[in-house]
């Protein structure tokens, strides 16, 4: 993947915004893979690839219910890196390689979120006396510090994802036959679909909503067959 510097910078800025949106500011869901991927595709002039990778990671996102302090992978910047990878490799190879880079970046993003929360805990613990004094300046400084650290974290995750995207094509693309590329894409898409279905069923539970899920599934299958 060799991209002009202005496109790389645009992807880095977008990945950072997406990473910050997940938890810190403003949680308007640009961190959703479907949105992150579509805009990353638009930056690269390749919206269809952005949407396709966005759909794969959106399905994986259903596996996560961000309640309490639960730990989870971060699929926003991961989708940006995935789209950058896929843009460099056409068709199924791009889908498989993009998903692989995105998964590794998502794992890294999740680890850094946990790390950041631990760092924030230490800083807030150290500032306890100032916070207990009710000094509004100290309060805002501690809070803004957390926001800035999250922005730095998101930028780093996106940058690492873009480096992986740059390395993926020469390191893996050449070693894979067409059949191999298809296998990789099948693995990524199949697990995304399975994670989407399993995650949704966890939300739906065994109550009356299960009948609504079954009705939707049936309707979706009929529509799919009819549209073929």
């Amino acid at each position, binding site marked *: 993947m060799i991209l002009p510097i202005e496109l790389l910078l645009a992807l880095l800025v977008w990945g950072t915004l997406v990473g910050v949106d997940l938890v810190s500011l403003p*949680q*308007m869901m640009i961190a959703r893979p479907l949105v992150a991927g579509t805009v990353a595709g*638009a930056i690269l002039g390749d919206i269809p690839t952005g949407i396709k990778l966005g759909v794969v990671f959106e399905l994986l996102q259903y596996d996560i219910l961000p309640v309490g302090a639960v730990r989870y992978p971060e699929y926003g910047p991961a989708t940006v890196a995935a789209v950058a990878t896929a843009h460099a490799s056409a068709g199924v190879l791009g889908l498989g390689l993009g998903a692989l880079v995105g998964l590794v970046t998502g794992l890294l993003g999740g680890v850094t979120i946990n790390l950041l929360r631990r760092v924030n805990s230490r800083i*807030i613990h150290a500032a306890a006396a100032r916070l207990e004094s009710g000094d509004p300046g100290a309060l805002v400084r*501690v809070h803004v510090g957390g926001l800035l650290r999250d922005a730095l974290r998101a930028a780093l995750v996106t940058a690492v994802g873009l480096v992986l995207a740059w390395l993926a094509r020469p390191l893996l693309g050449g070693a894979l036959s067409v059949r191999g590329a298809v296998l990789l894409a099948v693995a990524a898409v199949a697990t995304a679909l399975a*994670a989407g279905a399993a995650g*949704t069923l966890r939300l739906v539970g065994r109550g009356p909503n299960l009948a*609504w899920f079954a009705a939707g599934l049936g309707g979706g299958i009929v529509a*799919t067959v009819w549209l073929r």
Partner: protein
Amino acid sequence: MAAVNGALARALLRLFAVQGSYNYERMLGVGVGVAEEPLLRDLGDSKYRPAVARGAHFFNAHPYLVGLAVGAAARAEHDGAAPDQIERLREALCGPLGSLGDRLVWAGWLPFLSGLALAGVALGAGWIAVGVFLLVYNIGHVGLRWWALKAGWTHGTRVSVALHNPVLQKAGAVLGPAMAFAVGAALPLTAAYLSGPFDSWARVALAVVAALSFVALRLRGDRLNGLRLSLGLAAVALVVAVLWQ
């Protein structure tokens, strides 16, 4: 009145960043304190700093509904409630605001609209489906944040009245089935959309691997998640691909 509206607007803006310093010690506490601070400025000097300090104590709830606690605690400070009563109010709100927000937003509004967007994309709506998702989602998002802050400020220590708002109850009852139906419908459409470029043998492989993965996730959901399974299967696929040249 204008001063109150200005303070509420500033508090609302700060609420968008309420999780900015998320941590395992006070969770959202510091962010809640920052959001509440504009509403406390017209307290007297002797009350202002203790109220700001209280606002930054431990707090955890759904981020979109935190405004309810911010507004209620600030109003209680203005009404001269005792400090321990305000602490108890905050503690009492954590659980209900968390579970209500999770049910309404994370398990309702968000996956419902995401499912519709996925179906829209699969049916060929492309980026327009994504744009509509973002727009409609945020109408609900911003509306909920604003309602929560206003309701908290209006009711103060009697904020539990707001939690029994019939619109919230109705939304909770409607969004669960709507989410289940929308995502259920989106799954087969999305599967067809993603498998479009594959040959017939790859589609069969896709169906088999997806079914086995689903079973694995259902049976071992305590140890396995989508990311681990995806990475594991991608590694297996890479090895097979290199061997099967």
